[in-house]
């Protein structure tokens, strides 16, 4: 379940349309990206790694902790995007199976239902590639993908990539080429202040003391 409601912990499949109108359980509108294999503990339990600022108030500490965890999940994950099949993720209760969601449109169901063959995948994509990192930037930031890369890609592959990227706020296609998800950028409490060539970015977290 790649996405999880940060309020009640309910899980959602990648591309689930239910999330778009808020969590059906609690109405929450903040979701955390949780790649398969990542710790599936509920978001109320703080991850141990991010140290809480000493003396800071708990809300801010939580926000910073969550942000750090989210960024770590996004940047550190080695989950290949093509591996996010619904059948692999039906283990958690409360998980919405996107394949059977009535509200899902045919294109999404078809994109998720079919699997591309390995020879359809671009050759240069590293095995540990993640949707957040640009294929070329992960291993060699200065190398750009061939110009006709996107044109030659089969429709299904394109659809899948679009689905995978729809919850990312900024997708780095190559150095100097970006796709922006405006709703994600608008919805985030923290905001991006600096992009880096390797696909990572620096964010500004909410200030602890508001005037």
């Amino acid at each position, binding site marked *: 379940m790649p996405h999880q409601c940060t309020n009640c912990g309910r899980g959602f499949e990648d591309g689930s349309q239910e999330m778009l109108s808020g969590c059906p359980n609690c109405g929450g509108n903040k979701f955390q990206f949780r790649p398969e294999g990542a710790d599936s503990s509920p978001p109320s339990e703080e991850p141990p790694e991010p140290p809480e600022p000493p003396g800071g108030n708990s809300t801010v500490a939580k926000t910073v902790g969550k942000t750090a965890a989210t960024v770590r999940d996004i940047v550190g994950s080695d989950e290949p995007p093509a591996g996010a099949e619904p059948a692999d993720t039906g283990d958690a209760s409360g998980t919405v199976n996107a394949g059977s969601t009535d509200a899902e449109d045919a294109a999404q169901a078809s994109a998720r239902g079919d699997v591309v063959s390995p020879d359809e995948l671009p050759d240069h994509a590293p095995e540990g590639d993640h949707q957040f990192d640009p294929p070329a930037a992960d291993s060699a930031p200065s190398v750009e993908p061939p110009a006709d890369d996107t044109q030659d890609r089969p429709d299904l592959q394109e659809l899948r990539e679009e689905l995978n990227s729809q919850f990312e706020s900024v997708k780095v296609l190559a150095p100097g*080429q*970006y796709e922006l998800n405006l709703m994600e950028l608008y919805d985030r409490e923290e905001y*991006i202040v600096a992009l880096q060539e390797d696909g990572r970015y620096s964010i500004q977290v909410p200030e602890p003391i508001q005037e």
Partner: protein
Amino acid sequence: MGLLTNLKDSISRAAASLFSEEDPKRIGIYGPPNAGKTTLANRIARDWTGDAVGPESHVPHETRRARRKENVEIERDGKKVTIDIVDTPGVTTKVDYTEFLEHDMEKDDAVRRSREATEGVAEAMHWLREDVDGVIYVLDSSTDPFTQVNTMLIGIIESQDLPVLILANKIDLEDSSVQRIRNAYPQHETIPLSALEGDNMDEVYDKIAEYFG
């Protein structure tokens, strides 16, 4: 925040409370790239304060960081309206450095410009979330207004219940069609203007006072 800025803020707040009941409203100038946002911001700032806000250019994404001009006092019918103008980078879903290569730019510069523009859009979207009290949405009336970005942004603005004024800019161009914008967003009033030529600015100021005063 520095002592001087604090002091300046206190003084302007005290002054504002003498003459008006509220602090200046912060008005974000939003819209797609090359709609004429900076030209409009400069026109307003020059008309009422004598200063400019930032450089204008025909190359898209000239404005890559939000720029603010504070305490712009607009006088309408003997009444003063004070606003802070925030000129924002053009909002778009794709930024590609190759677009800038056509404008005689070196690749390194184009890539940097592209990165800065993306950061700027992220910043502008964040500001829209909590830092503006109203929006002036600028559209180039010579292009099709019915785009994903425009629809999404206007939708966000509506969902925030922010007052929004839609401006159909560049009416000096031959291909301009104000009606096309009115048809696309019939729920809002559309004001035609040419920020470059200064055409119809009186009506724009009337509406700014009406919407944000």
